[in-house]
């Protein structure tokens, strides 16, 4: 039964990935005042790209496709570990916060190799800016996750998601969520897939979207840890959990889309959003330990 649940969990996340990408694009277009594309359009466009006539750009590096493939593989592995509607997964004991963070970091940074594979100044500047943002954002990110782990009382996601830090104070939860939202506002938009065409481009787009979906799903499991069925297999509970997960993801996506700026991020790394995220994360970390001080 755990195997079936794991397969269904992974299938749900993979199937939702193009829709999630479409939803993000629709919200971004709506906020910019442009006509919003259908959230279902990535299903069609990715399929068309997958079936397009294969072409190879002269001097294109296979590193781009390789990096996208590794990024997607890391994201798929993370998706198989993050519970969406049930915690009765084969990999539930392996769903440890450090491992999930590492997988998502690898999925996000591996495609940057394709930026450097082009060898141009623009690719280098873009890759450098994204990596530098990760450096300055890391204290806020890790502090928020640390606070949520402390409140959940474990580093195993299935334990945090089921217990939900019962009896833990609400304020640090809210501050940690605010920190993550502020980080989402300050973060650069998804990296463009440079030098890839056809199937390799689909891999790059899917990797980017699935990584963000996994991050949103992780955020939902940590901050709103309700609606996940436990070890007892029950199709009705699974269905209800899947619907609740879809609602949570749609809500999180909408909030992330609304807090993001309409203009692309500038060259400055230390922004007000990042400062807010860092302060909120520090406050969440301190308050999560307040009873013990």
């Amino acid at each position, binding site marked *: 039964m755990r195997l079936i649940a794991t397969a269904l969990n992974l299938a749900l996340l993979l199937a939702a990935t193009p829709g999630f990408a479409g939803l993000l694009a629709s919200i971004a277009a709506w906020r910019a005042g442009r006509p919003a594309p259908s959230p279902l359009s990535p299903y069609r466009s990715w399929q068309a790209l997958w079936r397009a006539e294969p072409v190879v750009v002269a001097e294109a590096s296979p590193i781009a496709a390789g990096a996208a493939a590794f990024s997607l*593989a890391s994201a798929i*592995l993370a998706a198989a570990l993050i519970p969406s509607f049930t915690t009765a997964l084969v990999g539930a004991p392996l769903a*440890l916060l450090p491992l999930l963070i590492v997988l998502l970091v690898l999925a996000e940074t591996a495609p940057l190799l394709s930026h450097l594979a082009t060898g141009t100044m*623009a690719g*280098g500047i873009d890759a*450098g800016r994204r990596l530098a943002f990760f450096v300055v954002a*890391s204290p806020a990110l890790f502090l928020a996750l640390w606070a949520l782990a402390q409140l959940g009382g474990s*580093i195993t996601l299935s334990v945090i998601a089921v217990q939900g830090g019962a009896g833990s104070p609400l304020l640090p939860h809210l501050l940690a969520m605010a920190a993550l939202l502020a980080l989402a506002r300050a973060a650069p938009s998804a990296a463009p897939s440079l030098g890839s065409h*056809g199937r390799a481009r689909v891999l790059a787009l899917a990797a980017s979207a699935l990584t963000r979906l996994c991050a949103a799903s992780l955020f939902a499991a940590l901050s709103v840890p309700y609606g996940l069925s436990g070890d007892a297999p029950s199709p009705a509970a699974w269905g209800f959990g899947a619907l609740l997960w879809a609602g949570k993801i749609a809500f999180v996506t909408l909030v992330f889309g609304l807090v993001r700026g309409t203009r692309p991020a500038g060259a400055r790394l230390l922004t007000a959003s990042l400062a807010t995220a860092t302060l909120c994360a520090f406050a969440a970390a301190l308050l999560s330990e307040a009873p013990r001080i």
Partner: protein
Amino acid sequence: MLALGAVTLLFGPIMLGGAALALVARLRRPIGAMLWLVPLASAAVALLALLSGETRGALVLPLGLPGFPLTLVWDGVSALFLLALTLPLAVILRLSSPARPAASGVLVAGLHAIILAGDAYALLVGLALTLASLARLAAISRPRLAAIALVWLLLLAAQAPPLPDGTPNPVFAAWRAPALSPLAGLGLSALVLAGAGLVAAPLFRPARLAACANNEGALLIASLAPSALYLVARFLVDLLAPSAAGATAALALPLGAALALGAAARAAWAEDFLIACAALPGWLVGESVFALGISAWARHLDLAAPTRDATAAFFFLALLAAFAGPLWLALAAVITREAGSRHLARLGGLAWRMPKAALLAGIALTTVLPLGPGFFGAPLALTALLRAPGVGLGAVVLPMLVAVLGILLALAPFVAVRLFGLGFLGPPRTPRASAAEPPRAPEANLLTVLAAALALLGGVPGLGVALIAPALPGLRGGDPETAILLVAAPLATLIAIGLGVGLFLVASRHGARPVATVWEEGYGPRPAWLPFGDPATMIAPEILGAELPASLAPAKAWLRHWLRRLDAAWRAAYEAFLAPPCG
């Protein structure tokens, strides 16, 4: 006992006989060429002992001063560090035959004596032999350093609890018994860290390491990194851990953070490929000291699981620093020699000219990345912090530690992508780089040994645990989360790589129609008269990540301003103090 006997029988007579033979000029070079077999045999013994659990024994040799026989001990810590020391040492000695065989033989004997020392006398012998031979082998070490190290050791030995009759007790095992006062614990911890820092000091001078010729820099890293970390492990993890935990944490945390951040910043912004690679061992050594601080902090608070995680991270980081440090520097030396330049701006495109070297560099860089063997470093230390509840002052200190470790974790992809991307990807940026030859077979094969060791450590589930468990007995019997994490990380690496290869094969179809580049990222195709690209549009190393120092510039200026004001106030107060009284 068997393993200790084997190592003693191996290195004792061979060293003595070798040193005697080395006096004969004609035999020096052939003996020097075979010297690598000694550390290789020691590595094999240590590996077998670790895997079979044969990690107990002590041997008193009738050598030394009256009443001070040479005592050797063999336990999990000795076996682990002997493996960490001897495998890279064998590779480096095989890679370039030592120019001074007698000094190299003495070095190997001295390093063995440091790792196997069971008393202050054996450690004295080991340190003296090692530092003296390094002064002879590499110009980086000075006799003054050796003198300071010996004074340090005498000071340390004087702190040992005496025997019941009041005479000094040189045996290290006696340190375990007494409960120290906080002040004594602080003093001893500071003394141990100062001594280890003295030994490891050359590792934090990457420019000097990079300037060494004939793989002397790699030899220094292979010798000093495990020796220094062994001293820390033996005294602060094994002997003094329960009594000096708080003091160790207070010293090791800021020291490790400063060392790791300094070395990481050096690696992140160096424009010299060799210097960037030479800074990486210091990064791992600093991270291991930081992990030791976390372990001591958790032990001070009686937190079993975080203590275990952080101590395991310390041992893993020591192993990674010992294996990957010499590999980075030796590989960087080969690459820059073939590419004709050390400057990152003049490399590029080497992945197609020397694919095997690129693969080895990729494996070596995974030791700082949270992937494969690198997962057992900073991410494991982060796990310890995630599981450590902040009690009292810890509630304020722990978030700061998490922030520091987060920055170190985030700097890892920055450095790895920058070094690999600028060095190996993109088109070649100079004619010399476009004609680089792959490294010759013996060199490449020898470096493959170290890379394979790292790949096995990070890719075989359970191997890392098997190596560390004798040094950290509670690792296997502890709570399941640590065991799961240590097995899950290599498993996840293997699955991700396998899945990635499968996806790559699906995505890259044969028979694709080639099309010319018309417009790429705002630039046109390269004109025929600029085969290595237009310099105006090529990537420059100083551009990558330039926003980060620029963003920190106001904070640095503010800090400098206040430091200047403080300095001025201090000078004014001092001058006022020195000024003659009025009237």
